[in-house]
């Protein structure tokens, strides 16, 4: 049912799906008018969408290796672009990005530049060549190009460290959203999230993940764009916010100076009363507020990390050809651009609606008791995402007396701006889709590397297909369970661990991958040295700085990938040059990879 014909009918299938989802939103809006409770709407939104994903996962079940590992290599360009965009945009992008821009302004925008600019590296340096190679996983490329189990094993180690750091953050995000929307404790919600993730990936591997990710992209982009456009129009800020908010940005700057941003400082004793995790507006909205090096170093780490994260790279293994892999990167970035370019607009609209006394929603400058009596204030205060306090005792809410959690910008703005609750339910479903799709991709990347590269290629090369796929699924379950258990402990915030994942991936994999295609002289010993020393150096630097080390070159715990990848590059070049050049067969293999036509290096089923 899902093969051949399904591929030809994709636009129709997803067209109907999108239409159905819009009808569902309208039905919910009608139900809200008819008096359905906010809580029930939230439950419907999350439960309905998750059930659809699970259904797609079940329909895509398979017992073939190339369907399980690379979706049969028949995913068309545009759809692979959507799936990659969902794979890429995590709970952090969806829930926390607008909040980061809201609080940190220009300095934070380095992440936007980095998380998009990295795709130029993916398209030009890696994706088409790895597609030509015909590998199932990223370590599969490293293992075959350089030869030897040690290179393969090192790649699996780096992949696991980077992806596992990332996946705990994503399972944490699914848990957060599920606990808010379904009103259950976080410790249980994490496992509800895990169950949803496994339902999407376990039966059909990459094939199932691909088709659920397309469905998840559609939900998350609708959920992100509707509120941005609606709020902008409601405020009269312009019907197409992306091109029309210049006046609003200027107005925020005006209000910032009027309200004494940066001149009125809170005492430490006052700040101690603010609940943990909440922050006030302390940085100007649009001013350049960081040094060039800080901005650029963070952007560079995110770009190189993008090009080294295996769950993104393996999406380009699923396209029918080299040419489509290359184009598909462009489509991926286009679909990512739709959300990323909207996040700063949401931050602007959110901030202005809270700050501007001329707007009905503005709270700064109003009496504290009035603000505390607002319904939405009480809701979000209870959810521990909002807090006001009259530090100077003048009865009026000042800019420095208002505190908010980063997630509130996305989650609470629709309610603050007076949109119906159905939009908040939609946003919860979108956040769930974003976090689930990334978690799916990551869990699959890790378990595929372990089942294909460790179990099949190293431990038991004679294993039959059925046995391989059972091992793959058992590992998938174990990895997901381990991720959820760590997520339940809530060690590191969502965004922090996401950034670390990029740095880990960059430290260990960036140069071994790039040089594998672009430098024929690179050999196995060099690659192993590059991967292991790069990862070790990056990790050591992180531990050092975390424990009070001074660091050097202005490299922080968010940009330790710079140190790791430089060590990796030097180690790889030096060790490659002092050891023997790769044999003629390997050189020929690299030549083969460099031209799009002809057979792939690895056979279709391997």
């Amino acid at each position, binding site marked *: 049912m899902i093969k051949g014909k399904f591929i030809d009918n994709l636009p129709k299938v997803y067209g109907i799906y999108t239409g159905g989802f819009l009808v569902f939103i309208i039905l919910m809006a009608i139900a809200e008018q008819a008096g359905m409770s906010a809580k029930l709407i939230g439950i419907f939104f999350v439960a309905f969408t998750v059930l659809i994903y699970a259904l797609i996962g079940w329909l895509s079940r398979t017992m073939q290796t190339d369907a399980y590992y690379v979706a049969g290599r028949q995913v068309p360009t545009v759809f692979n672009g959507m799936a990659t965009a969902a794979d890429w945009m995590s709970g952090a992008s969806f829930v926390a990005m607008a909040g980061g821009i809201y609080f940190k302004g220009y300095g934070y925008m380095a992440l936007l530049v980095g998380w998009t600019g990295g795709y130029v590296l993916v398209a030009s340096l890696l994706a088409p060549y790895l597609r030509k190679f015909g590998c199932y996983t990223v370590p599969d490329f490293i293992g075959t190009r350089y030869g030897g189990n040690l290179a393969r094993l090192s790649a699996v180690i780096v992949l696991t460290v980077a992806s596992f750091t990332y996946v705990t953050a994503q399972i944490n995000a699914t848990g957060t959203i599920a606990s808010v929307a379904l009103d259950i404790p976080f410790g249980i919600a994490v496992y509800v999230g895990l169950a949803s993730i496994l339902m999407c990936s376990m039966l059909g591997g990459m094939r199932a993940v691909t088709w659920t990710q397309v469905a998840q992209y559609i939900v998350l982009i609708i959920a992100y764009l509707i509120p941005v456009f609606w709020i902008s129009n409601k405020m009269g800020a312009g019907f197409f916010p992306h091109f029309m908010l210049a006046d609003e940005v200027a107005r925020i700057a005006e209000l910032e100076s009027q309200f004494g941003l940066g001149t009125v400082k809170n005492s430490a004793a006052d700040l101690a009363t603010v609940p943990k995790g909440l922050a006030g507006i302390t940085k100007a909205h649009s001013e350049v507020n960081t040094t060039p090096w800080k901005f650029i170093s963070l952007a560079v780490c995110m770009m190189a990390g993008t090009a080294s994260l295996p769950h993104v790279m393996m999406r380009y293994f699923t396209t029918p050809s080299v040419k489509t892999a*290359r184009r598909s990167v*462009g489509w991926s970035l286009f679909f990512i651009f739709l959300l990323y370019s909207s996040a*700063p607009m949401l931050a602007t609209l959110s901030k202005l609606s809270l700050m501007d006394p001329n707007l009905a929603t503005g709270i700064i400058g109003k009496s504290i008791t009035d603000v505390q009596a607002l319904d939405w204030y009480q809701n979000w205060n209870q959810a521990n995402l909002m807090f006001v306090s009259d530090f100077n005792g003048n009865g009026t809410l000042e800019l420095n007396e208002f505190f908010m959690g980063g997630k509130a910008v996305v989650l609470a703005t629709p309610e603050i701006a007076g949109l119906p609750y159905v939009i908040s339910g939609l946003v919860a479903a979108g956040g769930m889709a974003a976090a689930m799709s990334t978690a799916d991709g990551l869990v699959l990347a890790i378990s595929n590397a372990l089942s294909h590269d460790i179990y099949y290629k190293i431990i038991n090369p004679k294993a039959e297909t059925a046995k391989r796929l059972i091992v793959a699924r058992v590992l998938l379950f174990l990895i997901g369970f381990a991720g959820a258990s760590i997520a339940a402990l809530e060690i590191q915030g969502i965004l922090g661990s996401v950034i670390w994942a990029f740095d880990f991936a960059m430290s260990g994999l960036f140069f071994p991958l790039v040089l594998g295609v672009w430098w024929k002289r690179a050999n196995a010993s060099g690659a192993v040295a590059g991967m292991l020393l790069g990862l070790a150096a990056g990790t050591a630097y992180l531990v050092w700085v975390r424990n009070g080390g001074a660091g050097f070159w202005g490299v922080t715990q968010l940009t330790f990938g710079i140190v790791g990848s430089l060590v990796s590059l030097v180690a790889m070049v030096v060790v490659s040059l002092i050891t023997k050049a790769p044999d003629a067969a390997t050189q020929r293999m690299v030549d083969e990879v460099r031209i799009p036509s002809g057979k792939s290096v690895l056979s279709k089923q391997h």
Partner: protein
Amino acid sequence: MSKQAQHWEKTRNHLFITLAIWFVFSIGIFFFGAEMEASNFRPFGYPLSYYMTCQGSLGIFVILIFWFANRQEKIDEEFGYTEREGD
């Protein structure tokens, strides 16, 4: 020089041009954040520094990848390295 070596040389030059453009908009211009902010060139009325971080550079990357893909396809075609259907 063999056909394949020529193809690779063209591909490599194309990569360098692409990476040069990429470098300018992902790294180069951000050495001049303060200058961009003070600039009188304000796309859609936004300060230039703000605009480049929210839309400008991002949009340029999207266009750059499609341009890169188109030109690379032409290079592959020129040397007869285009994939056949069903490869």
